[in-house]
């Protein structure tokens, strides 16, 4: 046992420290589908903020890199310990502390799993809309750290729109509480939202306070079958423009439907090229009127077919299949790299066209499934084989798509974060002045550069 491991065991108990290579291997990766080999030197599994603070203070004193980790469902390599050191796994810090009806807010610990939280608030007739598709496993702390979103973003916004306060262990081990239960605050810099999206580079989020909304009483799922990708993209723009904003609006190509059909009880027709999977929510009357508006739009724009899914179980099975697309795709392909390009909604038809052109010119398959309602598409590069030539083509396609996304006034990441996966494109989107400013903020929080080093910008750390 190394000195590091002994020290950590003394700080938080030997049951909460892992050091054998068979265990460490499991913390070298997140959900990005390429395997990394840099192991951490140790993993700690604390169950309290105090334990994390102790570990963090120790790491600060000894200048040891610390990588915070939630469920490791991230798609940017953010939770991978590229410089070794200590991984702080927050999954045992998972209590739902309070659901406060009177103030419509809730407090949870950083490692609480999103789906458990959804269940708890919905049992009380309340609603926490953010819904990254990994919700069965991902943590609230991870969601805040990546500013996660999901299909409901179109109507309700994403994690950042709900966080009102945080408890954070800073790199030197001190603990701060930002914001609170109030929904507004005008006191100095907004550290809550600086931490939101910080990808574990500024501190460890141990507590999260979010606001809640009332649970909508009614909802209905509608599926639109479209002849072409362009048509689907145009229908999306029109729906939003007409104000019948669905609570979820997903864009799916035929390939996605084909794999989803292996999963659902009532398979969907596959004679279209693109599909829109939508849900309307609100009062029964409002749902009814929104569904009528959508049907009208689809009729006017000559959609192939509009299916209203009245059977609750069937509807749920489509949404479950939607959240499983990424693993489902792997039954057919051998590697898939999911991008996160987001453009202003009106440019979705342009982005969809661009992706098709790039796929054709580079000669590789690119799947399209995304939260089209808020302009966030996940073009996914699909490799039938794993070899250098395929990999080179995949990279080429990714580069071209990202460039085109930026030209369309978009961003390289809507919700997954930069991590290590997108750091080489950071400077394509942000000018040097902004990057330098961010690095100075980083240095102010983390003068010793120990907090999740090697992420966001290429050189990493605070250098």
């Amino acid at each position, binding site marked *: 046992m190394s000195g590091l491991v002994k020290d950590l065991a003394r700080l938080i108990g030997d049951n909460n420290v*892992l050091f*054998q*290579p*068979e*265990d460490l*291997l*499991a*913390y070298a*990766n*997140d*959900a*990005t*589908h390429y*395997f990394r080999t840099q192991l951490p030197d140790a*993993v700690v*599994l604390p169950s309290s903020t105090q334990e994390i603070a102790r570990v963090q203070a120790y790491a600060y004193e000894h200048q040891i890199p610390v990588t915070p980790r939630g*469920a*490791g*469902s991230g798609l940017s390599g953010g939770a991978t310990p590229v410089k070794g050191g200590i991984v702080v*796994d927050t*999954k*045992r810090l998972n209590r739902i502390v309070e659901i406060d009806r009177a103030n419509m807010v809730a407090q949870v610990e950083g490692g609480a*799993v999103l*789906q458990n939280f959804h269940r708890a608030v919905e049992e009380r007739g309340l609603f926490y809309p953010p819904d990254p598709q*990994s919700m*069965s*496993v991902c943590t609230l702390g991870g969601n805040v750290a990546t500013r996660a979103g999901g299909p409901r973003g179109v109507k309700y916004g994403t994690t950042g729109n709900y966080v009102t306060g945080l408890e954070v262990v800073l790199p030197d081990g001190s603990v701060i509480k930002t914001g609170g239960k109030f929904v507004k605050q005008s006191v100095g810099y907004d550290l809550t939202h600086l931490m939101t999206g910080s990808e574990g580079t500024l501190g460890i989020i141990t507590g999260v306070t979010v606001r809640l909304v009332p649970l909508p009483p009614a909802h209905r799922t509608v599926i639109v079958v479209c002849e072409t990708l362009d048509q689907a993209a145009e229908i999306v723009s029109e729906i939003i423009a007409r104000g019948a904003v669905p609570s979820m609006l997903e864009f799916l190509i035929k390939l996605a439907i084909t794999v989803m059909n292996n*999963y659902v009880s009532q398979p969907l027709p596959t004679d279209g090229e693109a599909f829109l999977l939508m849900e309307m929510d609100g009062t029964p009357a409002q749902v009814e009127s929104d569904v009528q508006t959508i049907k009208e739009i689809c009729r006017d724009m000559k959609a192939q077919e509009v299916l209203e899914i009245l059977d609750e179980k069937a509807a749920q099975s489509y949404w479950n299949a939607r959240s*499983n697309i*990424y*693993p*489902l*795709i*792997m*039954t057919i392909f*051998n590697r*898939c790299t999911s991008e996160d390009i987001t453009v202003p909604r009106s440019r979705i038809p342009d982005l969809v066209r661009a992706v098709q052109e790039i796929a054709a010119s580079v000669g590789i398959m690119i799947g399209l499934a995304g939260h089209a309602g808020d302009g966030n598409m996940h073009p996914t590069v699909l490799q039938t084989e*794993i070899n250098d030539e395929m990999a080179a083509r995949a990279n080429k396609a990714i580069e071209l798509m990202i460039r085109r996304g930026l030209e369309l006034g978009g961003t390289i990441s809507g919700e997954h974060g930069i991590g290590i996966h997108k750091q080489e494109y950071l400077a394509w989107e942000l000018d040097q002045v902004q990057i330098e400013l961010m690095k100075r903020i980083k240095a102010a929080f983390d003068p010793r550069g120990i907090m999740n080093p090697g992420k966001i910008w290429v050189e990493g750390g605070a250098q």
Partner: protein
Amino acid sequence: MLKLENYEAIINKCSHCGYCQATCPVYLEDMLESHVARNRLNLINQVLILKTMPSTPRFREILDRCLLCTNCTQTCSSKVPVDEIIIAARAETGKSTLGGLKSFVMSKMLQQRGLTGLMGKAGSLVQKMGVAAREMPQLASKPFSQIYSGTIPAQGEQRGRVAYFVGCGTNFLYPDTGIATVQVLTRNGWEVVIPAGQVCCGIPAMAEGDLAAAREMVATNLNLFDLDNVDAVITDCTSCGMMIKEKFSKMLNPEDPLQEKAQAWAGKIYEITDFLQQQGLSDRPASLYASFTYHVPCHRGWSPTVVDAPRELLGNLPGAELRELPDPEKCCGAAGTFFMEHRDLSERIRSHRVEQIEASEVQTVITQCPVCRFYLSASLNSQQVTHPVIMLAQAYENVSQE
């Protein structure tokens, strides 16, 4: 064949999404990433396939700390057969050293039936190990094989003929399940054939990685049954059912002449309540005055309707009150003989299940797995645990009493 080399391609189908965290009972207990399917797969790949890491005691321990409950495979949309890969890895790393009672159960009890002297021996072993009697299965005073055998004719008009595969749980621990199975089947017009000489389905040996022993049991059973003349093979145990449906053929070489029989079995195997629900009851039970809940066994993935059947058969009877648990499909922690060697872990997993059952305040818990039945009973004070077919048989008794 469950050889690791046959899984080298499919192991890479894991997208590493991590969704298997959501349902792995072992992970949810300790939150160790190394125990989640995705990392078990990566570790097996590194140690046994790519050989970038040595095979160590910790590796074996991680392999062994898996219930083979298949919750991960059922969750996995990439359809990675995690359980089979873990079994193949266990087989490749050689037998683990089994604890006293477990090795006795594995080597003697399951392979040779009808040795009456064995029962006393098991009892004394339990005492020697200092295990509370309640925490070890008690053998029935008379095994099922001494209660029913041969052909039992249908009552009333015959609808068909079924073969009954009697699992070890029913034979040694719970003959009442077997009795109820025979009674309900015959009552509903099914002639029941129970071939003599049946042995264990092989799942415990397979789980241990002892594929040769498992293969032998599979072959013995396949040779005993004449499937041409039966409409279905009935099991009352979801684990036997999974073994027969999904693994029998994989225990044999691809060229094995028994393959054809294994396929035929896979096509005809039904869990008893699933069979009754699909065929419909010709004789209506009228009442069941009981509140009950359904503990869904983990080995349910082999039939899409096996979890609906008990609910549908019993839930609508007059007087029946089915109260669903918050998580009906949560594992109880027993997993065959797993609980004998991982007592602390199993007990912690069970405690969550027991908490939910106690909060439901039902009288009875139904489940189609004898090990779940035993293991939950051992920890429940106010509820009895039973097989749904036993409740159904009772419902008939209620009619005849009226």
